[in-house]
């Protein structure tokens, strides 16, 4: 007979023990896996399971349920992942995830929360009570917040329907030190992000995510290969596609994508028919307006070209004497200078609209045609806008730090992410100069935030994530002191 009562008793005892020792063991090695269950598995669960298995083979049917239970206890994550999460049972998913602490490395509590949040996401009509349970698990994972906890918060946001927050959080795991972001958490975050981007048809984002994320290499590579074929990028062959599909081992799940990507013939990017209306619009103003209006239908990837064309047309229109005559004629009765003034205002309005469009479509400024006044004007506005946003956000963070107003850990992280995202966007649109100015604006407040979280609030994992990003920035656009400071800070660990 197997003393299951005793086994469970031992588990409970070990659990209590580990709880008592938590403080000390954390000090000893902050990244250590809580190994009590592993120990228990090797010493007790595996032998007893084997024993019942032999018994079963010997024909003692009585052992059958115990064998099943034993196997389940040997592979707790598999059970949670394939049984309780699909069933949408947060409690059980979380319990088995607890047993799977091996998979969660240094963030076992985060792992529990993650499994619970995922199960909630899968639940048909989650009860308020289930929600409260997951919230409680999330709260438990909050101090300190680590990789799996962040993904858990992301999934929770997704279950609320707030996909934007979910995206931000799931993507942010790649900023953390790997020691505090368990591989499983990174993998799940990556898979969620890929599925989400694919579901919304954002194939360009799939490319970026699959490159940045980690934890699930072959699946990411398969998604990338598919996205490249769908976007008709050059050299996106079928061999690569099928190889990664095979290697990714998610054959059933990814079969529709494979089919679709297989079918699409890679086509060469074709230029946009911007010239269509040329013969029609004899006068320059109408032509500029036409190109301007055409921006509403520019496909992704052709933004810079279309914007440059519109800007040049506006330059010509605003300089043309015919247009000046037209404005003067329309301005009759308003005043002698009204026509010219109106054109000046028009120029400003156009620049503003084009800049807003460039910002919305995330046009890279360096790709715009140089030498046009309107292009310069637009680029200036876009840059200014990006920087102003960053500066004002940095300013707000400064105020908050000055007043020492703490936020919950997850929101602290999101506050940082919001700023970091703006900086990345600014850099990607505006290039090195904007990157330098953006870094200058956020350097001090973010450093202070990180230090506050690290020193006083023991949120070392996310603070470390912040310092890692700051280090990367300061290597390119900071002073030597900045580099050294962040190297030190990152060196302090997570």
């Amino acid at each position: 007979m197997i003393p299951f009562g005793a086994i469970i008793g031992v588990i409970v005892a070990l659990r209590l023990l580990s709880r008592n020792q938590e403080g000390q063991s954390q000090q000893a090695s902050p990244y250590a896996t809580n190994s009590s269950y592993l120990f228990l598995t090797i010493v007790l669960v595996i032998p007893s399971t084997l024993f019942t298995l032999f018994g079963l083979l010997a024909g003692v049917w009585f052992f059958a349920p115990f064998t099943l239970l034993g196997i389940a206890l040997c592979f707790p994550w598999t059970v949670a992942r394939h049984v309780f999460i699909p069933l949408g049972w947060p409690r059980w998913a979380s319990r088995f995830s607890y047993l799977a602490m091996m998979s969660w490395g240094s963030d076992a509590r985060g792992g529990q929360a993650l499994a619970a949040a995922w199960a909630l996401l899968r639940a048909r009509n989650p009860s308020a009570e289930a929600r409260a349970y997951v919230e409680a698990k999330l709260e438990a994972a909050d101090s300190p917040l680590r990789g799996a906890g962040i993904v858990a918060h992301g999934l929770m946001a997704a279950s609320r329907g707030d996909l934007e927050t979910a995206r931000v959080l799931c993507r942010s795991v790649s900023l953390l030190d790997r020691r505090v972001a368990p591989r499983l958490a990174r993998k799940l975050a990556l898979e969620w992000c890929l599925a989400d981007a694919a579901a919304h048809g954002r194939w360009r984002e799939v490319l970026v995510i699959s490159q940045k994320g980690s934890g699930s290499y072959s699946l990411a590579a398969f998604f990338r290969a598919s996205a490249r074929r769908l976007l008709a990028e050059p050299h996106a062959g079928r061999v690569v596609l099928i190889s990664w599909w095979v290697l990714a081992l998610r054959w059933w799940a990814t079969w529709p994508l494979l089919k679709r990507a297989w079918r699409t013939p890679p086509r060469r990017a074709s230029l946009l028919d911007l010239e269509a209306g040329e013969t029609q619009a004899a006068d320059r103003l109408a032509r500029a307006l036409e190109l301007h209006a055409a921006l509403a239908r520019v496909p992704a990837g052709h933004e810079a070209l279309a914007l440059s064309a519109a800007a040049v047309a506006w330059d010509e229109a605003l300089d043309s004497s015919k247009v000046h005559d037209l404005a003067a004629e329309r301005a009759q009765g308003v005043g002698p200078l009204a026509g010219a003034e109106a054109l000046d205002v028009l120029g400003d309005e156009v620049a503003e609209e084009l800049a807003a469009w460039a910002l919305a479509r995330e046009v890279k400024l360096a790709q715009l045609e140089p030498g046009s006044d309107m292009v310069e004007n637009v680029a200036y506005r876009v840059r200014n806008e990006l920087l102003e946003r960053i500066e004002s956000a940095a300013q707000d963070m400064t105020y908050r730090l000055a007043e020492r107003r703490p936020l919950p850990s997850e929101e602290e992280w999101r506050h940082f992410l919001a700023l970091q995202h703006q900086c990345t966007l600014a850099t990607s649109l505006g290039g090195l100069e904007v990157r330098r100015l953006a870094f200058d604006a956020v350097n001090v407040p973010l450093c202070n935030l990180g230090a506050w979280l690290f020193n006083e609030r023991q949120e070392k994992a996310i603070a470390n994530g912040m310092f890692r990003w700051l280090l990367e920035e300061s290597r390119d656009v900071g002073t030597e002191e900045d580099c050294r400071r962040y190297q030190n800070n990152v060196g302090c660990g997570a």
Partner: protein
Amino acid sequence: MATPLYVGIDLGTTNSTAAAFDGEKLTLIRNAQGANLTPSVVRIDARGAVTVGDRARRLIDSDPQNTRSEFKRLMGTSQALEFAAAKLSKKPEELAAEVLKSLRKDVEQQLGVAPTCAVISVPALFELPQSAATSEAARLAGFSRVELIQEPVASALAAGWSANDEGSWLVYDLGGGTFDVSLLETRDGLLRVVGHDGDNFLGGRDFDQAIVDEVLAELLRTQGVDIRRADPRHATALRKLKRAVEEAKIELSRTDELPLLVPGAFETDNGPVDVDVVLTRARVEAACAPLVQRSINVCLRLLAAHGLEPSQLGKVVLVGGPTAMPFLRSQVQAALGAPFATDLDPMTLVAQGAALYAASSGLDGRPAASSAQPAPSGRKVWLQYPAMSSDLSPHVVGRLVEGDSGPKPALVRLVRADGGWSSPDSPLSAEGAFVLSVELVPRKPNTFRLEGMGADGKPVPLAPASFTIVQGLTLSDPPLSRSIGVALANNAVRVYFERGAPLPARRTFRQRTVEAVAKGSTGNVLRIPIVQGELEWAHLCRLVGALEIRGDQLKASLPADAEVELTLELDRGGRLSARALVPALGQVFEQVAQLQVPDATPESLQEGLTAARERLSMLRSSAFRRGAPGVVASLSQADQALAEIERDVEAARGGDADAGQKARRGLLDLDAQLEQAEAGLRWPELEETVREELAVASSWVAQFGSPAEQTLLDEAMKACERARAGRQQVELQRHLRSVRKLGNAAFYRHPSAWEWQFDSASSRVSEASDVSKAEELVQRGRRALEQQRREELRHVVEQLWRLLPEDAQERRLAHDSGVR
């Protein structure tokens, strides 16, 4: 058809008037005393009985505790007015409601119908809270629907109605408490408000005050008695004197000289003091001249703002009591040159215009029961047409009311009742609708018959069978007098409605939150302040309301940088509503908190005054240093304004709430003026700083910088030059910061850098927030310096810096806004 009843009311500071229009002629309403003007004075006696008008006004001297006037100037504030005998306190709008009630009764007396709708005039520069209070007053007085019109627009409408000429007009409206001037233009029978200006705190009252000051100055000169406005002891006596002075002033419009005698007016420590002076016209004119000049300056400013010379004006319309003064007339005439519109009554013009406006917006005052006609028979048609139209061929649109039974017409036709015109037969569209253009006889009510015909050519009765359109000058939508927007966290303003936007209006913009709001916490609030004004910076605009999103209302925490879709809506009566949708949470928030003009306590005013004074003196010294004559000149104007505000603050301390409001207003304007002066100084200052700092930074980086930093600096210097050439101030500051940072980094590599920093910080110890701690730090620093412990020295300096004062916070200024 019974004649319609369009009612307009001029709710004035001193006098109120009502007028009625029936589509053809204007009638002035007389009150029980047979006068057109009803003084805006309310008295409540010990039994709670309310008296309004002349009878109340006569008691204002003998019973000031129970009689109140000039409450219009407190509209929209929370200031309650006490009635001692009845032990009541009433809000300004409740008192205004009493006046409106009495006017409504007068209309009923004269025309036999108590109107349910009316148009009420308000000063052009009234802000939202004041307009909202006026609408509220009308509601309290029993009007179920009311629209507001700006006084100058009303005057112009009335003036335009009786005259035929086209061109630009100036309406000069100097009332008891407010001065409005409007530039208008009539073309093609359309009246357009080109622009407004004015002064919410300039009127006959201020003339009285100026004369009182003159009298007090004489008392000081001849009898050596110093009476101060701030002394609450003299409040009653001053009020009495003021009334006497006002009467004398009005009298002096006709005579040249008048004795002013108030025996035993003031109680002083040395016994009672008599007032016994002779007021001459010349003396009164001398006292009032600066005020008149001020009003003329406003007119010139308005003309200049629209690129007009006074000579281009076709006509000037004078409105309001003080314009009866011959001296004022001649001054205005001399300054503006244009002829005055004669044969218009300056005292009732506004009410007449309001009545005309009621007609053009179809606000028939007859109660529903009396206007109901014998149940109309025939197929019901829903008609849309302008009740009043300046267009000679407006459109009439109609549609069969669905669900109504009866024979359906196939064709419809409109026939003018005088038989002079009829439309072609027009088939109904698939929706059962028709659009027809009709022809009107100018300046007359035009009645049309609506005739329907079946497919068989037989007439089909329709209801209504006829309707009337009045042809004449119209104004379609009341324009907003000052822009309305949302204050953003960086102290900028996002304008939702521009000045001049037609009401009603609604607009939605997307904002982003600055900070997270945690779910459940009550202390955590996202504030969205709504401001009104034309200035670029939120703190210079008036706060007229705020939408708050509190943590305890949230379904989930609201992260920083979350999107908020904010919709502002304004109705014709100036009522504002706001709605914030948070898409991430799918939640909507609607409560608008606090829609009131803030109280002006003497303490807060004094604070503002001190700050303004300091700022002024700083600006002046910096303007002199830089030799900017334009700025110096504008500062001397600010000086005058400051002096006036000082006087008002003093009066506010003596219990004059109105003067307090005026001072608050003045402070805001002064702030704006100083802001402008500062902006003029900022650019040269910035250029100079850039020059200096570039030199310093490049020398440090050359000595101690790494090659990478050298490249960064070169780039930043180039960018600085670019921004300087393009006069892009923000951009230049940004690059300057970057340069400064690179320079600083290099500077601190100098072995003695921290030593120098320590010296400079320790010299500022007296400014520290905690001086004793700072001194202790300085001691520690000295020791570290002696022992050459660099790291510790650095630590000390950093701690010292933390104790030294920092710059003011922008967000505080921006009404604590939580969005951007």
